[in-house]
Protein backbone atom coordinates (compact mmCIF):
# COMPACT_ATOMS: atom_id res chain seq x y z
CA UNK A 1 0.00 0.00 0.00
CA UNK A 2 1.20 3.49 -0.82
CA UNK A 3 2.05 5.56 2.26
CA UNK A 4 0.61 9.05 1.96
CA UNK A 5 1.91 10.51 5.20
CA UNK A 6 4.65 9.25 7.43
CA UNK A 7 5.34 11.07 10.71
CA UNK A 8 8.50 10.21 12.60
CA UNK A 9 9.12 11.23 16.24
CA UNK A 10 7.55 14.67 15.86
CA UNK A 11 7.73 16.91 18.97
CA UNK A 12 6.59 20.40 19.88
CA UNK A 13 6.78 22.13 23.23
CA UNK A 14 5.05 25.35 24.27
CA UNK A 15 6.80 26.59 27.39
CA UNK A 16 6.16 23.97 30.06
CA UNK A 17 3.62 22.07 28.04
CA UNK A 18 4.76 19.27 25.77
CA UNK A 19 2.06 19.64 23.12
CA UNK A 20 3.26 16.78 20.93
CA UNK A 21 5.65 14.15 22.24
CA UNK A 22 7.71 12.04 19.80
CA UNK A 23 4.64 11.24 17.78
CA UNK A 24 4.94 8.73 14.95
CA UNK A 25 2.25 7.47 12.64
CA UNK A 26 1.64 6.43 9.07
CA UNK A 27 -1.36 7.10 6.92
CA UNK A 28 -1.85 4.77 3.99
CA UNK A 29 -3.73 5.51 0.78
CA UNK A 30 -7.46 4.95 1.08
CA UNK A 31 -7.59 5.16 4.86
CA UNK A 32 -10.06 7.37 6.66
CA UNK A 33 -7.77 8.06 9.57
CA UNK A 34 -9.22 9.50 12.76
CA UNK A 35 -7.08 11.34 15.29
CA UNK A 36 -9.16 11.19 18.42
CA UNK A 37 -8.28 13.14 21.52
CA UNK A 38 -9.64 15.66 24.00
CA UNK A 39 -9.04 19.37 23.47
CA UNK A 40 -5.40 20.18 24.07
CA UNK A 41 -4.21 16.66 23.29
CA UNK A 42 -2.00 17.87 20.45
CA UNK A 43 -4.22 17.16 17.44
CA UNK A 44 -4.18 20.65 15.96
CA UNK A 45 -0.48 21.12 16.75
CA UNK A 46 0.30 17.89 14.90
CA UNK A 47 -1.78 18.94 11.89
CA UNK A 48 -0.23 22.42 12.05
CA UNK A 49 3.24 20.94 11.85
CA UNK A 50 2.56 18.65 8.90
CA UNK A 51 1.02 21.63 7.06
CA UNK A 52 4.06 23.88 7.65
CA UNK A 53 2.19 26.29 9.91
CA UNK A 54 4.01 25.27 13.08
CA UNK A 55 7.72 24.61 13.28
CA UNK A 56 8.45 21.27 15.02
CA UNK A 57 11.12 21.22 17.74
CA UNK A 58 12.32 17.86 16.52
CA UNK A 59 11.26 14.94 14.37
CA UNK A 60 10.32 14.79 10.73
CA UNK A 61 7.54 13.85 8.36
CA UNK A 62 7.18 12.90 4.74
CA UNK A 63 4.36 13.51 2.32
CA UNK A 64 3.91 10.97 -0.47
CA UNK A 65 7.25 9.41 0.48
CA UNK A 66 9.15 12.65 -0.12
CA UNK A 67 10.51 15.50 1.96
CA UNK A 68 7.68 18.02 2.41
CA UNK A 69 7.65 21.02 0.07
CA UNK A 70 5.06 23.56 -1.04
CA UNK A 71 4.43 21.26 -4.02
CA UNK A 72 3.33 18.41 -1.73
CA UNK A 73 0.94 20.80 0.02
CA UNK A 74 -0.72 21.57 -3.31
CA UNK A 75 -1.90 17.94 -3.38
CA UNK A 76 -3.50 18.27 0.06
CA UNK A 77 -6.91 19.73 0.83
CA UNK A 78 -7.15 21.00 4.38
CA UNK A 79 -9.79 22.48 6.65
CA UNK A 80 -8.04 23.86 9.70
CA UNK A 81 -10.07 24.85 12.77
CA UNK A 82 -11.78 28.04 11.59
CA UNK A 83 -12.58 28.88 7.97
CA UNK A 84 -10.05 31.51 6.87
CA UNK A 85 -11.13 33.70 3.98
CA UNK A 86 -11.22 37.34 2.98
CA UNK A 87 -14.47 38.71 4.46
CA UNK A 88 -14.95 41.31 1.71
CA UNK A 89 -14.57 38.86 -1.18
CA UNK A 90 -17.28 36.61 -2.60
CA UNK A 91 -17.08 32.84 -2.14
CA UNK A 92 -16.13 32.48 -5.78
CA UNK A 93 -13.33 35.05 -5.57
CA UNK A 94 -11.98 33.41 -2.44
CA UNK A 95 -11.94 30.02 -4.14
CA UNK A 96 -10.21 31.51 -7.20
CA UNK A 97 -7.40 32.69 -4.94
CA UNK A 98 -7.09 29.18 -3.49
CA UNK A 99 -7.05 27.68 -7.00
CA UNK A 100 -4.40 30.16 -8.13
CA UNK A 101 -2.16 29.38 -5.15
CA UNK A 102 -2.47 25.68 -5.95
CA UNK A 103 -1.65 26.32 -9.65
CA UNK A 104 -5.08 25.14 -10.80
CA UNK A 105 -7.30 26.95 -13.24
CA UNK A 106 -10.74 28.11 -12.14
CA UNK A 107 -12.70 25.38 -13.94
CA UNK A 108 -13.22 23.33 -10.78
CA UNK A 109 -14.54 26.20 -8.67
CA UNK A 110 -18.18 25.81 -9.74
CA UNK A 111 -18.11 22.05 -9.17
CA UNK A 112 -17.02 22.32 -5.53
CA UNK A 113 -19.55 25.13 -4.97
CA UNK A 114 -22.24 22.75 -6.22
CA UNK A 115 -20.91 19.87 -4.12
CA UNK A 116 -21.09 21.93 -0.96
CA UNK A 117 -24.43 23.52 -1.84
CA UNK A 118 -23.08 27.06 -2.03
CA UNK A 119 -23.48 27.66 -5.76
CA UNK A 120 -26.54 29.91 -5.37
CA UNK A 121 -24.68 32.10 -2.88
CA UNK A 122 -21.38 32.09 -4.81
CA UNK A 123 -21.37 35.84 -5.47
CA UNK A 124 -22.19 36.85 -1.91
CA UNK A 125 -19.47 38.16 0.32
CA UNK A 126 -17.90 35.71 2.75
CA UNK A 127 -18.82 37.90 5.73
CA UNK A 128 -22.53 37.51 4.96
CA UNK A 129 -22.28 33.72 5.37
CA UNK A 130 -23.58 31.78 8.36
CA UNK A 131 -21.02 29.75 10.27
CA UNK A 132 -22.25 26.54 8.68
CA UNK A 133 -21.82 28.02 5.20
CA UNK A 134 -18.35 29.28 6.07
CA UNK A 135 -17.39 25.79 7.16
CA UNK A 136 -18.81 24.35 3.92
CA UNK A 137 -16.81 26.91 1.92
CA UNK A 138 -13.68 25.76 3.75
CA UNK A 139 -14.54 22.23 2.72
CA UNK A 140 -15.17 23.41 -0.84
CA UNK A 141 -11.71 24.99 -0.98
CA UNK A 142 -10.16 21.77 0.35
CA UNK A 143 -11.94 19.75 -2.32
CA UNK A 144 -10.72 21.85 -5.27
CA UNK A 145 -9.24 19.70 -8.01
CA UNK A 146 -9.68 16.47 -6.04
CA UNK A 147 -6.78 16.38 -3.60
CA UNK A 148 -4.91 13.14 -2.87
CA UNK A 149 -5.65 13.61 0.80
CA UNK A 150 -8.16 15.62 2.76
CA UNK A 151 -7.26 16.90 6.23
CA UNK A 152 -10.08 17.97 8.50
CA UNK A 153 -9.54 19.50 11.92
CA UNK A 154 -12.74 19.43 14.00
CA UNK A 155 -14.86 20.04 10.91
CA UNK A 156 -18.16 19.99 12.79
CA UNK A 157 -17.09 22.13 15.73
CA UNK A 158 -19.58 24.87 16.49
CA UNK A 159 -22.15 23.69 13.94
CA UNK A 160 -25.83 23.06 14.63
CA UNK A 161 -27.12 19.48 14.23
CA UNK A 162 -28.21 20.13 10.67
CA UNK A 163 -24.80 21.58 9.79
CA UNK A 164 -23.07 18.61 11.42
CA UNK A 165 -25.18 16.18 9.40
CA UNK A 166 -24.40 18.07 6.16
CA UNK A 167 -20.65 18.09 6.77
CA UNK A 168 -20.57 14.41 7.77
CA UNK A 169 -22.57 13.49 4.71
CA UNK A 170 -20.05 15.36 2.54
CA UNK A 171 -17.07 13.67 4.20
CA UNK A 172 -18.59 10.22 3.74
CA UNK A 173 -19.25 11.07 0.10
CA UNK A 174 -15.62 12.10 -0.39
CA UNK A 175 -14.40 8.97 1.42
CA UNK A 176 -16.52 6.82 -0.87
CA UNK A 177 -14.63 8.30 -3.83
CA UNK A 178 -11.47 6.74 -2.41
CA UNK A 179 -9.80 9.97 -1.26
CA UNK A 180 -7.61 9.44 1.81
CA UNK A 181 -8.84 11.44 4.81
CA UNK A 182 -7.34 12.49 8.13
CA UNK A 183 -9.99 13.63 10.56
CA UNK A 184 -9.08 15.16 13.91
CA UNK A 185 -11.91 15.19 16.40
CA UNK A 186 -12.68 15.14 20.09
CA UNK A 187 -15.92 13.28 19.40
CA UNK A 188 -15.65 9.52 19.70
CA UNK A 189 -18.96 9.08 17.97
CA UNK A 190 -17.82 11.17 14.99
CA UNK A 191 -14.63 9.15 14.52
CA UNK A 192 -16.58 5.93 14.95
CA UNK A 193 -19.09 6.94 12.28
CA UNK A 194 -16.65 8.24 9.70
CA UNK A 195 -13.23 6.61 10.14
CA UNK A 196 -11.90 3.15 9.55
CA UNK A 197 -8.58 3.72 11.28
CA UNK A 198 -7.91 5.62 14.47
CA UNK A 199 -5.13 6.89 16.71
CA UNK A 200 -6.12 8.01 20.21
CA UNK A 201 -4.08 10.96 21.39
CA UNK A 202 -3.63 12.35 24.89
CA UNK A 203 -1.13 14.96 26.09
CA UNK A 204 0.83 14.64 22.90
CA UNK A 205 1.17 10.85 23.07
CA UNK A 206 -0.54 8.16 21.04
CA UNK A 207 -2.35 5.83 23.45
CA UNK A 208 -3.70 3.35 20.94
CA UNK A 209 -3.86 3.09 17.24
CA UNK A 210 -5.32 0.56 14.88
CA UNK A 211 -8.44 -0.07 12.89
CA UNK A 212 -11.55 1.36 14.48
CA UNK A 213 -12.80 -2.18 14.90
CA UNK A 214 -9.61 -3.24 16.69
CA UNK A 215 -9.44 -0.24 18.95
CA UNK A 216 -13.10 -0.37 19.87
CA UNK A 217 -12.72 -4.03 20.69
CA UNK A 218 -10.12 -3.26 23.32
CA UNK A 219 -11.97 -3.75 26.51
CA UNK A 220 -9.31 -4.61 29.06
CA UNK A 221 -6.28 -2.93 30.24
CA UNK A 222 -3.84 -4.43 32.70
CA UNK A 223 -2.20 -2.53 35.50
CA UNK A 224 1.34 -3.62 36.28
CA UNK A 225 4.26 -2.48 38.32
CA UNK A 226 7.56 -3.89 39.46
CA UNK A 227 10.83 -2.76 40.95
CA UNK A 228 12.18 -2.00 37.49
CA UNK A 229 9.46 -0.49 35.34
CA UNK A 230 11.85 0.10 32.43
CA UNK A 231 12.62 -3.59 32.12
CA UNK A 232 8.93 -4.31 32.61
CA UNK A 233 8.03 -1.98 29.76
CA UNK A 234 10.61 -3.55 27.47
CA UNK A 235 9.31 -7.04 28.26
CA UNK A 236 5.68 -6.07 27.67
CA UNK A 237 6.56 -4.47 24.34
CA UNK A 238 7.93 -7.84 23.20
CA UNK A 239 4.65 -9.60 23.94
CA UNK A 240 3.08 -10.87 20.69
CA UNK A 241 -0.30 -9.25 21.44
CA UNK A 242 1.19 -5.95 22.65
CA UNK A 243 -0.69 -2.84 21.58
CA UNK A 244 0.35 -0.01 23.87
CA UNK A 245 1.77 0.79 27.28
CA UNK A 246 1.81 4.02 29.24
CA UNK A 247 3.01 4.92 32.70
CA UNK A 248 0.86 6.74 35.17
CA UNK A 249 1.99 7.39 38.77
CA UNK A 250 4.45 4.50 38.80
CA UNK A 251 1.88 2.08 37.44
CA UNK A 252 2.12 0.78 33.89
CA UNK A 253 -1.11 0.46 31.93
CA UNK A 254 -0.77 -2.14 29.21
CA UNK A 255 -3.26 -2.79 26.43
CA UNK A 256 -3.24 -5.91 24.29
CA UNK A 257 -4.84 -6.54 20.98
CA UNK A 258 -6.51 -9.75 22.19
CA UNK A 259 -7.90 -10.97 25.42
CA UNK A 260 -4.83 -11.63 27.54
CA UNK A 261 -5.49 -12.85 31.08
CA UNK A 262 -3.53 -11.32 34.00
CA UNK A 263 -2.39 -14.78 35.00
CA UNK A 264 -0.90 -15.35 31.56
CA UNK A 265 0.94 -12.04 31.78
CA UNK A 266 2.31 -12.89 35.20
CA UNK A 267 3.61 -16.17 33.86
CA UNK A 268 5.02 -14.48 30.73
CA UNK A 269 6.90 -11.94 32.85
CA UNK A 270 8.09 -14.56 35.28
CA UNK A 271 9.77 -16.30 32.37
CA UNK A 272 11.55 -13.02 31.66
CA UNK A 273 12.71 -12.82 35.28
CA UNK A 274 10.48 -9.90 36.16
CA UNK A 275 8.71 -10.01 39.49
CA UNK A 276 5.56 -7.95 39.75
CA UNK A 277 4.66 -5.90 42.78
CA UNK A 278 1.23 -5.05 41.39
CA UNK A 279 -1.08 -6.72 38.93
CA UNK A 280 -4.72 -5.91 38.30
CA UNK A 281 -7.21 -5.99 35.49
CA UNK A 282 -9.16 -2.89 34.61
CA UNK A 283 -12.29 -3.49 32.63
CA UNK A 284 -13.45 -0.69 30.46
CA UNK A 285 -14.44 0.09 26.94
CA UNK A 286 -12.65 2.59 24.76
CA UNK A 287 -15.53 4.92 25.35
CA UNK A 288 -15.14 4.75 29.11
CA UNK A 289 -11.44 5.15 28.72
CA UNK A 290 -11.93 8.12 26.49
CA UNK A 291 -14.44 9.72 28.84
CA UNK A 292 -11.92 9.34 31.63
CA UNK A 293 -9.35 11.03 29.47
CA UNK A 294 -11.72 13.91 28.93
CA UNK A 295 -12.41 14.12 32.65
CA UNK A 296 -8.68 14.12 33.45
CA UNK A 297 -8.25 16.85 30.98
CA UNK A 298 -10.94 19.11 32.35
CA UNK A 299 -9.89 18.75 35.98
Amino acid sequence: METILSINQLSKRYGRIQAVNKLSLDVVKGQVFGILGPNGSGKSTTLGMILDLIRPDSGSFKWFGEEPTKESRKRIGAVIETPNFFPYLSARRNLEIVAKVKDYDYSDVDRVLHTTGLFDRRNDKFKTYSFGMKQRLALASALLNKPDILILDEPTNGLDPQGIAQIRQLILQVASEGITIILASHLLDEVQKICNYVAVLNKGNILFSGTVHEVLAISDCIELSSGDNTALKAAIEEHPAFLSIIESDGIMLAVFSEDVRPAAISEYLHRKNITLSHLAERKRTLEQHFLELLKDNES
Partner: protein
Amino acid sequence: MKLLTIELKKILPYKTFWIVIGLYFLFLALGIIMAEYIVNAMVDDINKRLPIPLPHAVLFYFPDIWQNLTFFASIRFVLIFPAIVVIILITNEFTNKTVRQNIVNGMSRSEFIFSKLQVVFMLALIITVILMLVMLTLGLIHSDSQSLSLMFNGFSFVIGFFIQMLTYLCFAFFIAFILRNTGLAIALFTLYTIIIEPVIYFLLRAPFIWENTVYTYLPVNSVIRIVEYPSIPALKKLMNFQLQDQVTLLSCSVPMIYAVVMIGIVYWTFNKRDL
Protein backbone atom coordinates in the same frame (compact mmCIF):
# COMPACT_ATOMS: atom_id res chain seq x y z
CA MET B 1 3.32 37.08 -12.21
CA LYS B 2 1.32 34.41 -10.38
CA LEU B 3 1.95 36.02 -7.00
CA LEU B 4 1.04 39.46 -8.29
CA THR B 5 -2.19 38.10 -9.80
CA ILE B 6 -3.11 36.63 -6.42
CA GLU B 7 -2.36 39.94 -4.71
CA LEU B 8 -4.44 41.89 -7.22
CA LYS B 9 -7.35 39.50 -6.63
CA LYS B 10 -7.10 40.31 -2.92
CA ILE B 11 -6.59 44.07 -3.28
CA LEU B 12 -8.68 45.38 -6.17
CA PRO B 13 -12.13 44.63 -4.67
CA TYR B 14 -11.05 45.95 -1.26
CA LYS B 15 -12.88 49.20 -0.47
CA THR B 16 -10.59 50.29 2.37
CA PHE B 17 -7.63 50.18 -0.02
CA TRP B 18 -9.29 52.66 -2.39
CA ILE B 19 -10.44 54.90 0.45
CA VAL B 20 -6.97 55.29 1.98
CA ILE B 21 -5.26 55.68 -1.40
CA GLY B 22 -7.98 58.23 -2.27
CA LEU B 23 -7.23 60.11 0.96
CA TYR B 24 -3.55 60.21 0.04
CA PHE B 25 -4.23 61.82 -3.32
CA LEU B 26 -6.82 64.14 -1.77
CA PHE B 27 -4.33 65.45 0.80
CA LEU B 28 -1.69 65.65 -1.89
CA ALA B 29 -3.97 67.68 -4.15
CA LEU B 30 -4.91 70.00 -1.29
CA GLY B 31 -1.23 70.38 -0.47
CA ILE B 32 -0.38 71.26 -4.06
CA ILE B 33 -3.23 73.76 -4.30
CA MET B 34 -2.33 75.42 -1.01
CA ALA B 35 1.47 75.23 -1.33
CA GLU B 36 1.88 78.27 -3.54
CA TYR B 37 -0.53 80.30 -1.44
CA ILE B 38 1.20 79.40 1.83
CA VAL B 39 4.72 80.00 0.50
CA ASN B 40 3.75 83.40 -0.92
CA ALA B 41 2.02 84.36 2.32
CA MET B 42 5.34 83.64 3.99
CA VAL B 43 7.19 85.70 1.40
CA ASP B 44 4.77 88.62 1.95
CA ASP B 45 5.33 88.38 5.68
CA ILE B 46 9.11 88.48 5.24
CA ASN B 47 8.86 91.34 2.74
CA LYS B 48 7.36 93.60 5.40
CA ARG B 49 10.76 93.65 7.09
CA LEU B 50 12.92 93.91 3.96
CA PRO B 51 13.90 97.08 2.08
CA ILE B 52 13.94 95.26 -1.29
CA PRO B 53 10.99 92.87 -1.50
CA LEU B 54 11.59 89.28 -2.61
CA PRO B 55 9.74 88.13 -5.73
CA HIS B 56 6.73 85.85 -5.36
CA ALA B 57 7.43 82.18 -5.72
CA VAL B 58 6.12 80.18 -8.66
CA LEU B 59 6.34 76.57 -7.67
CA PHE B 60 5.04 74.82 -10.74
CA TYR B 61 7.39 75.54 -13.59
CA PHE B 62 10.14 73.38 -14.97
CA PRO B 63 12.55 72.30 -13.68
CA ASP B 64 11.71 73.35 -10.07
CA ILE B 65 8.34 71.62 -10.13
CA TRP B 66 10.04 68.21 -9.79
CA GLN B 67 11.69 69.19 -6.54
CA ASN B 68 8.72 71.15 -5.18
CA LEU B 69 6.03 68.59 -5.77
CA THR B 70 8.09 65.61 -4.66
CA PHE B 71 8.89 67.63 -1.54
CA PHE B 72 5.22 68.25 -0.74
CA ALA B 73 4.29 64.66 -1.61
CA SER B 74 6.82 63.29 0.85
CA ILE B 75 6.17 65.27 4.01
CA ARG B 76 5.42 63.02 6.98
CA PHE B 77 1.67 63.67 7.18
CA VAL B 78 1.15 62.76 3.55
CA LEU B 79 3.61 59.90 3.28
CA ILE B 80 1.85 58.06 6.10
CA PHE B 81 -1.22 57.19 3.98
CA PRO B 82 0.34 54.74 1.51
CA ALA B 83 2.22 53.23 4.47
CA ILE B 84 -1.11 52.63 6.22
CA VAL B 85 -2.34 50.88 3.07
CA VAL B 86 0.63 48.52 3.18
CA ILE B 87 0.12 47.86 6.91
CA ILE B 88 -3.57 47.07 6.39
CA LEU B 89 -2.93 44.77 3.43
CA ILE B 90 -0.33 42.75 5.35
CA THR B 91 -1.91 42.63 8.83
CA ASN B 92 -5.26 41.65 7.24
CA GLU B 93 -3.62 38.38 6.27
CA PHE B 94 -2.87 37.72 9.91
CA THR B 95 -6.19 38.88 11.39
CA ASN B 96 -8.20 36.97 8.78
CA LYS B 97 -5.71 34.09 9.13
CA THR B 98 -5.59 33.92 5.34
CA VAL B 99 -1.80 33.69 5.62
CA ARG B 100 -2.31 30.24 7.13
CA GLN B 101 -4.65 29.33 4.33
CA ASN B 102 -2.11 30.49 1.74
CA ILE B 103 0.68 28.41 3.27
CA VAL B 104 -1.52 25.33 3.68
CA ASN B 105 -2.63 25.63 0.07
CA GLY B 106 0.95 25.46 -1.14
CA MET B 107 2.54 28.89 -0.98
CA SER B 108 6.01 28.87 0.53
CA ARG B 109 6.75 31.35 3.29
CA SER B 110 9.31 33.09 1.11
CA GLU B 111 6.74 33.40 -1.67
CA PHE B 112 4.35 35.00 0.78
CA ILE B 113 6.96 37.59 1.78
CA PHE B 114 7.87 38.13 -1.86
CA SER B 115 4.24 38.67 -2.86
CA LYS B 116 3.94 41.44 -0.26
CA LEU B 117 7.20 43.01 -1.44
CA GLN B 118 5.77 43.05 -4.93
CA VAL B 119 2.76 44.96 -3.60
CA VAL B 120 5.11 47.45 -1.92
CA PHE B 121 7.11 47.89 -5.12
CA MET B 122 4.06 48.26 -7.35
CA LEU B 123 2.39 50.73 -4.99
CA ALA B 124 5.54 52.89 -4.84
CA LEU B 125 5.89 52.71 -8.62
CA ILE B 126 2.26 53.54 -9.39
CA ILE B 127 2.17 56.49 -6.97
CA THR B 128 5.42 57.81 -8.45
CA VAL B 129 4.12 57.46 -12.02
CA ILE B 130 0.85 59.22 -11.14
CA LEU B 131 2.73 62.03 -9.43
CA MET B 132 5.08 62.28 -12.41
CA LEU B 133 2.14 62.65 -14.80
CA VAL B 134 0.63 65.34 -12.57
CA MET B 135 3.97 67.19 -12.50
CA LEU B 136 4.34 66.92 -16.27
CA THR B 137 0.87 68.32 -16.83
CA LEU B 138 1.21 71.16 -14.32
CA GLY B 139 4.71 71.93 -15.60
CA LEU B 140 3.59 72.13 -19.20
CA ILE B 141 0.73 74.46 -18.22
CA HIS B 142 2.94 76.84 -16.21
CA SER B 143 6.24 76.84 -18.05
CA ASP B 144 7.47 79.20 -20.74
CA SER B 145 9.77 78.19 -23.57
CA GLN B 146 12.91 78.99 -21.60
CA SER B 147 12.08 76.76 -18.65
CA LEU B 148 10.84 74.03 -21.04
CA SER B 149 14.37 73.66 -22.31
CA LEU B 150 15.43 72.83 -18.75
CA MET B 151 12.45 70.48 -18.39
CA PHE B 152 14.29 67.35 -17.29
CA ASN B 153 17.02 69.00 -15.21
CA GLY B 154 15.42 68.09 -11.90
CA PHE B 155 14.31 64.64 -12.91
CA SER B 156 16.52 63.05 -10.22
CA PHE B 157 13.86 64.15 -7.74
CA VAL B 158 11.36 61.77 -9.34
CA ILE B 159 13.81 58.89 -8.87
CA GLY B 160 14.45 60.17 -5.33
CA PHE B 161 10.71 60.25 -4.62
CA PHE B 162 10.39 56.66 -5.80
CA ILE B 163 13.19 55.61 -3.42
CA GLN B 164 11.46 57.53 -0.62
CA MET B 165 8.16 55.81 -1.27
CA LEU B 166 9.78 52.38 -1.69
CA THR B 167 11.89 52.51 1.46
CA TYR B 168 9.20 54.08 3.63
CA LEU B 169 6.73 51.41 2.51
CA CYS B 170 9.36 48.79 3.37
CA PHE B 171 9.40 50.18 6.91
CA ALA B 172 5.62 49.76 7.00
CA PHE B 173 6.01 46.23 5.62
CA PHE B 174 8.43 45.51 8.45
CA ILE B 175 6.17 46.82 11.23
CA ALA B 176 3.19 44.92 9.80
CA PHE B 177 5.04 41.59 9.69
CA ILE B 178 6.48 42.02 13.17
CA LEU B 179 3.35 43.24 14.98
CA ARG B 180 0.72 41.36 12.89
CA ASN B 181 -2.04 43.50 14.41
CA THR B 182 -3.65 46.21 12.26
CA GLY B 183 -4.56 48.75 14.92
CA LEU B 184 -1.36 48.41 16.87
CA ALA B 185 0.85 48.59 13.77
CA ILE B 186 -0.91 51.67 12.37
CA ALA B 187 -0.89 53.46 15.73
CA LEU B 188 2.76 52.74 16.46
CA PHE B 189 3.92 53.53 12.94
CA THR B 190 2.02 56.82 12.80
CA LEU B 191 3.14 57.80 16.28
CA TYR B 192 6.74 57.01 15.46
CA THR B 193 6.72 58.91 12.18
CA ILE B 194 4.91 62.01 13.39
CA ILE B 195 5.86 62.33 17.06
CA ILE B 196 8.49 59.95 18.40
CA GLU B 197 11.12 60.42 15.73
CA PRO B 198 10.81 64.22 15.50
CA VAL B 199 11.21 64.35 19.29
CA ILE B 200 14.31 62.14 19.22
CA TYR B 201 15.55 64.25 16.32
CA PHE B 202 15.03 67.44 18.28
CA LEU B 203 16.75 66.09 21.41
CA LEU B 204 19.75 64.87 19.43
CA ARG B 205 19.95 67.94 17.32
CA ALA B 206 19.58 70.67 19.93
CA PRO B 207 23.22 70.70 21.07
CA PHE B 208 24.70 70.76 17.56
CA ILE B 209 22.69 73.18 15.51
CA TRP B 210 23.46 73.08 11.79
CA GLU B 211 25.83 70.19 12.03
CA ASN B 212 25.17 66.99 10.18
CA THR B 213 25.48 64.31 12.78
CA VAL B 214 23.84 61.11 13.92
CA TYR B 215 20.28 62.50 14.03
CA THR B 216 20.12 62.65 10.27
CA TYR B 217 20.43 58.88 10.16
CA LEU B 218 17.15 58.15 11.96
CA PRO B 219 15.09 55.89 9.67
CA VAL B 220 12.19 58.13 8.71
CA ASN B 221 14.42 61.19 8.72
CA SER B 222 16.77 59.51 6.30
CA VAL B 223 13.79 59.00 3.97
CA ILE B 224 12.59 62.58 4.33
CA ARG B 225 16.07 63.92 3.63
CA ILE B 226 16.20 62.49 0.12
CA VAL B 227 14.07 65.46 -0.94
CA GLU B 228 14.79 67.78 1.96
CA TYR B 229 13.83 71.24 0.75
CA PRO B 230 11.57 72.70 -1.88
CA SER B 231 13.21 74.84 -4.55
CA ILE B 232 12.02 78.37 -3.94
CA PRO B 233 14.32 81.13 -5.29
CA ALA B 234 13.11 83.69 -2.73
CA LEU B 235 13.98 81.44 0.18
CA LYS B 236 17.33 80.50 -1.36
CA LYS B 237 18.22 84.17 -1.47
CA LEU B 238 17.04 84.75 2.05
CA MET B 239 18.80 81.75 3.62
CA ASN B 240 21.94 82.72 1.76
CA PHE B 241 23.32 79.24 1.46
CA GLN B 242 23.14 76.53 -1.14
CA LEU B 243 20.03 74.41 -0.69
CA GLN B 244 19.71 70.98 -2.22
CA ASP B 245 19.51 71.03 -6.00
CA GLN B 246 19.59 67.31 -6.73
CA VAL B 247 19.08 63.91 -5.19
CA THR B 248 22.33 62.30 -4.09
CA LEU B 249 23.13 58.61 -4.11
CA LEU B 250 24.39 58.94 -0.55
CA SER B 251 21.05 60.22 0.75
CA CYS B 252 19.26 57.34 -1.00
CA SER B 253 21.63 54.71 0.35
CA VAL B 254 20.84 55.26 4.05
CA PRO B 255 17.11 54.39 3.92
CA MET B 256 17.88 51.64 1.43
CA ILE B 257 20.23 50.00 3.90
CA TYR B 258 17.48 50.24 6.55
CA ALA B 259 15.00 48.67 4.15
CA VAL B 260 17.31 45.78 3.26
CA VAL B 261 18.01 45.05 6.93
CA MET B 262 14.28 45.15 7.73
CA ILE B 263 13.41 42.81 4.86
CA GLY B 264 16.15 40.49 6.13
CA ILE B 265 14.68 40.47 9.64
CA VAL B 266 11.18 39.80 8.28
CA TYR B 267 12.51 36.95 6.16
CA TRP B 268 14.34 35.42 9.09
CA THR B 269 11.56 35.72 11.70
CA PHE B 270 8.71 34.80 9.36
CA ASN B 271 10.46 31.59 8.36
CA LYS B 272 11.02 30.70 12.02
CA ARG B 273 7.78 31.68 13.69
CA ASP B 274 4.62 29.61 13.98
CA LEU B 275 1.61 30.92 12.10
